[in-house]
């Protein structure tokens, strides 16, 4: 017992600050009007709640796919560039922007492409263009692309020039090199990136909430917030908890895919 004394405060803290809310969430999700039941969960898989869940999954999938492709191209452009300054600048900027979700991001885009935005005025965009599915995807890419750059840059750095040279010496074309050498090595990293981007877009709440996206594109996070604050109807708190449970299940699935991939992707890079 004395041996683990130093670890005890952390274990107790996590048990209290994380364990109690987790238990409360699960218990609440399975409580319908005071007695145990699956009613709340069933409700979350119907009507408006199901639409919101679907919207969230669709938006996150689009952002994850686009973000990982664009992020990989950007990372490759930076990694293969001979300019050290460019590399440092892009990687540092990615570090900042990947952590820059939330409220300020929403207001930046509202000021740019919102209804009275600077650029939407110049382009003559119709009112409300930003507050659509693709508008929100554009905003989410602002933190997703940098996140992908951070995830994939080390993997691209790990592609040794010798591999390309060996492939070229054996008569491979650039396409064959990418198809049979580089991509297989990069695959775990790329998939890991896609999954990570999906998870971060799926969990995002502040940006969508500050943009007021709830009316045009209901997302599961916005529905949870509405149910918790009793905006819709009182007594819907447990439905909010059931929705939370749905989200945790999706997120757990995401991490169950991501962590092994991350471990595999580091294997080639040592």
């Amino acid at each position: 017992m004395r041996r683990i004394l130093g670890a005890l405060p952390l274990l107790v803290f996590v048990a209290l600050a994380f364990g109690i809310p987790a238990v409360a969430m699960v218990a609440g999700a399975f409580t319908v009007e005071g007695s145990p039941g699956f009613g709340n969960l069933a409700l979350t898989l119907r009507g408006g709640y199901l639409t919101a869940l679907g919207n969230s999954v669709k938006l996150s999938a689009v952002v994850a796919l686009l973000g990982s492709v664009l992020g990989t191209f950007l990372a490759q452009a930076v990694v293969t560039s001979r300019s050290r300054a460019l590399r440092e600048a892009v990687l540092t900027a990615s570090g900042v922007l990947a952590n820059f979700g939330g409220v300020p991001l929403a207001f930046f885009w509202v000021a740019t492409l919102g209804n009275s935005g600077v650029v939407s005025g110049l382009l003559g965009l119709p009112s409300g263009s930003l507050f659509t599915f693709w508008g929100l995807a554009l905003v989410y890419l602002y933190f997703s692309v940098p996140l992908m750059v951070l995830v994939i840059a080390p993997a691209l750095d790990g592609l040794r020039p010798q591999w390309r040279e060996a492939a070229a010496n054996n008569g491979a074309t650039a396409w064959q090199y990418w198809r049979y050498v580089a991509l297989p090595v990069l695959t775990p990293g790329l998939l890991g990136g896609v999954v990570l981007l999906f998870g971060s877009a799926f969990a995002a709440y502040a940006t969508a909430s500050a943009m007021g996206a709830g009316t045009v594109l209901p997302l599961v996070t916005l529905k949870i917030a509405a149910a918790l604050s009793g905006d819709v109807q009182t007594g819907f708190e447990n439905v909010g908890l059931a929705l939370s449970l749905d989200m945790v299940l999706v997120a757990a699935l995401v991490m169950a895919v991501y962590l092994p991939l991350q471990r595999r992707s580091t294997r080639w890079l040592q």
Partner: protein
Amino acid sequence: MTALTPVAPVPETVPVTPRRRGRPRLWRAVVLALAALYFLVPLAASFWYTVHNEATGLSFAPYAELWAAEGFLPSLLLSFGLALATIVLVLLLTLPAMITVRLAAPRLRPVMEVICTLPLVVPPITLVAGVGKSLQAGGEVLAPTPFWATLIALQDQDFPLVLVFVYVILVLPFVYRSLDAGLRTMDVRTLVEAARNLGASWPHVMLRVIVPNLRTALAGAAFLTLALVLGEYTVASILGYQPFAVWIVTISGAKGQLSVAASVLSLLLTWLLLLTISGGSRDRSA
């Protein structure tokens, strides 16, 4: 693979060289230009939005107005206070635990990894849903007991400790990774045993031996926590408190320009903090 590693660079075949040199440059330029456009335009447009409007023309007044705006300073101070408390608490909890696992209880290591990864599985909005429910249920259960006062103290409007606790959980994975990377670079066991043999007490070992060696990792963890807590909106808004990010949204209805100005300020702040981290880590490697 290693057998192929050339000492001298492999000469490229002549016909390939010009084509390869030329094409990548073009796509690289296109990619970089598009990225610059996408990432810089919103920054420039937002700045323009804050300093220019039809009525007054060019003016930096919104930034001056910000300081005087009601709630600006208290919310910013609350955010910094919460960040500071979160940093102190998370480091006090994780550092001794990680040292213990390394020195005395390696079998706890998988447990630690799971504990410090779990928060990644739980999106903040779901965590706060659980916290809200527990506070409410706790209020009903604990009302007749002395713990009632503790529960109320947790939710104090001036300094909501409950936010600090939730933030500690949310930053745990990042702090764990930063400290783990730092501890990997030093031989903890030898250092601790040497210090103990020379008669140093445990607090002395921690403060004079471990902490100085972990400076970069500790600073990285602290700054990242600071950046995350300063920008945090989800938990605070749902539990009904008003730190900086929540304040920005509160004023956005009445004063759009001010909220964008506050956003610009908050990006600059994040930028400075993270530059400090990367600057600090570069100093060490140099």
